[in-house]
């Protein structure tokens, strides 16, 4: 977000505040949206919110849902579980929101899910991947996940790497918290099924937000892996890539690195610019620049997103917020109203359209079972950053994945 955009936002907020925001809110359908807008995770929170805002403005421009407008109430959850809980309660009880979408970290999502259950409010989680969110003991009728999960991610990573026939010694490097451990766990389990000949030679666990990866990289290189499965993402991957490249890390493994942490997202590619380690394989929810067969809806979506965000390339994260709102709206329409129980029942098993294809909420697990687009990162002279080449959608089920 540029300075001007922020100024405009501030002015808009002031105007809305002075005019009394209640004016148009009389019978709008209210959606509470607590998500991190500050701290390192704001890298995702801000564009996800943008995507949701775009969906809301598009739907309202077409007359809203069942004759009612949508209203988005966004709040900064600060990536903090108790703040997210406080906001969820405030949104539900004080602001009378009908639905909740949002949260990002693996603590916020289960925390808010408990509050949603207690208040019987439908809650869609657009980006948390933790399995715990929908684990049988925590599952309830009102929680639905738009995002992928660590099982799908780890299994997809294994699928990609199983295709590299000559690899024998694999190492892993992932952030030292549940997300990293869960994804790596599924990865290893699936890899052992697909490629029993492959040996896991090293595992490194730097912490989230590690400022210096050098020691981890050198320790890993000493085990002489010929391929690496990595789970770092966002700013951490930028740091890792920039520090690993001059150590000869990518060269030593011949760029045989797969990363399940969505570092194929355009935001990441732009941040790394010419420092992107070309030739690695990675995933993204939204290949913003789509080489190969691009669906027409996707092309149109990206055009609208660029216009809405007023940036040259939009963001690969916005689609998660956008899908959250469109899935919810599909549920409201199917239920014929905003009653929580009816919408929750409608969402279970519902198939909804996204710019990258259809998704279905599994009626039993409440998972969208969303996969991601995997591909090799390459340089295209048309763009000043790396792009994902011929992305392929992968959403394997690790339980049935066999050779």
């Amino acid at each position: 977000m540029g300075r001007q955009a922020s100024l405009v936002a501030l002015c808009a907020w002031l105007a809305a505040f002075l005019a009394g925001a209640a004016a148009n809110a009389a019978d709008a359908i209210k959606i509470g949206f607590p998500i991190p807008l500050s701290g390192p995770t704001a890298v995702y929170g801000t564009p996800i919110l943008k995507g949701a805002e775009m969906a809301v403005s598009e739907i309202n421009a077409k007359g809203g849902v069942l004759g009612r407008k949508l209203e988005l109430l966004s709040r900064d959850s600060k990536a903090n579980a108790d703040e997210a809980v406080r906001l969820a309660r405030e949104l539900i009880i004080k602001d009378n929101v009908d639905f909740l979408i949002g949260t990002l970290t693996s603590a916020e999502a289960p925390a808010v899910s408990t509050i949603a259950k207690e208040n019987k409010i439908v809650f869609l989680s657009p980006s948390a991947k933790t399995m715990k969110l929908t684990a049988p003991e925590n599952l309830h009728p009102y929680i639905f996940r738009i995002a992928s999960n660590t099982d799908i991610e780890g299994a997809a990573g294994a699928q990609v790497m199983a295709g590299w026939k000559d690899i024998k010694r694999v190492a892993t490097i992932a952030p030292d918290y549940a997300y990293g451990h869960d994804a790596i766990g599924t990865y290893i389990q699936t890899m052992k099924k697909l490629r029993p000949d492959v040996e896991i030679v090293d595992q490194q666990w730097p912490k989230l937000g590690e400022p210096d990866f050098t020691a981890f990289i050198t320790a890993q290189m000493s085990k002489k892996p010929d391929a690496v499965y990595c789970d770092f993402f966002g700013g951490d991957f930028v740091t890792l890539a920039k520090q690993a490249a001059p150590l000869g890390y990518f060269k030593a493994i011949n760029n045989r690195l797969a990363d399940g942490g969505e570092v194929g997202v355009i935001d990441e590619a732009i941040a790394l610019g010419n420092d992107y380690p070309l030739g690695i394989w990675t995933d993204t929810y939204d290949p913003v620049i789509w080489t190969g067969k691009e669906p027409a809806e996707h092309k149109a979506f990206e055009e609208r997103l660029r216009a809405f965000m007023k940036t040259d390339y939009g963001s690969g994260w916005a689609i998660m917020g956008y899908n959250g709102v469109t899935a919810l709206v599909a549920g409201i329409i199917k239920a014929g109203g905003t009653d929580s129980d009816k919408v929750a029942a409608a969402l279970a098993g519902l198939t909804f359209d996204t710019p990258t294809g259809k998704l279905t909420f599994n009626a039993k697990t409440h998972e969208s079972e969303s996969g991601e687009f995997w591909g090799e990162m390459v340089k295209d002279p048309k763009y000043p950053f790396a792009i994902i080449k011929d992305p392929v959608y992968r959403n394997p089920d690790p339980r049935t994945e066999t050779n």
Partner: protein
Amino acid sequence: MSRLSSDRIPWALIVFVIGLSVPWVGSRYDTFLATQIAIYALFALSLNLLLGMTGLVSFGHVAYFGIGAYVCGILMKTLGVPFIVAFPAAGLGAGAFALVFGYFCVRLTKIYFAMLTLAFSQIVWAVCFKWNTVTGGDQGLPEVPFPDLGWMSAIPGTGHFRISEYFYLLTLILVMLCVAALRRIGQSPFGRVLTTIRENPERAAFIGVNVRGYELAAFTVAGVFAGFSGALFGIFNRGVFADYVFWSKSADVMIMAILGGMNHFWGPAIGAAVLTLLNQQITSYTEYWPFVLGTILVVLLFAFPGGILGALDAGWTRLTHRRGLPTQRNA
């Protein structure tokens, strides 16, 4: 002690009565806010036993808050222990850790003390963040149950209450009991020794006070009450998460103490209320809450170093023309 908090006006009783009326007078959300304020007030008051009373700047008080939350949460959720056992256990658990960590911390003074308390609290955070099988790791322990409060429906006029309103009443009573205990501790001979240590540790040692021993005792007692507040916080938020133990919460609670005025017994409680309400109001309008908080803090430190109660006290004194400005404690 100041005139405003003198015993002529039964402040505690007034606050308690107002507090009790919230679920009947206010909205459901007001009850949530009041619960949060009560819990933070206890947390901030427990910190002030160190900060204002003994003069120990603990930058890791959140560790004992968090340990209390985890002990209570694990006992109630994982082991199915009733609240009546889990709550005291949370205080004891937090106190035990405070005793051990405090033993090392009180050997140091000033900034070293602050930094070692911070280091211990971050170690506690790291353990909570990692120990999946017990603490749930970074994903925490969601769905901590409310205590069984069915018996409370016998209270007349509570027919329309939900569990959260009953839990508020329970919280209010427990917090008030804890605060009363803290008040008694402050006014006891033990508390007076702590004040002596704050004013001049060398002199206290000279007249034969075991300074370290007393500091350790204060540290442990503060830990116990922080543990109680943490236990309530975990249930209130329906889950315990590693975020509760992160160091920035130590800064938040310190701000509460300063904001209300740490030279007054009730100051930190006032600070907790004001900060919670401000946070709630401002975050509804802007995501730039840290900026607002920072600005408030700067104004406070420069214009009202005695906090809200300090400023009120000064104004009161001026109005009644009794004496000059009350003496500020300053280094």
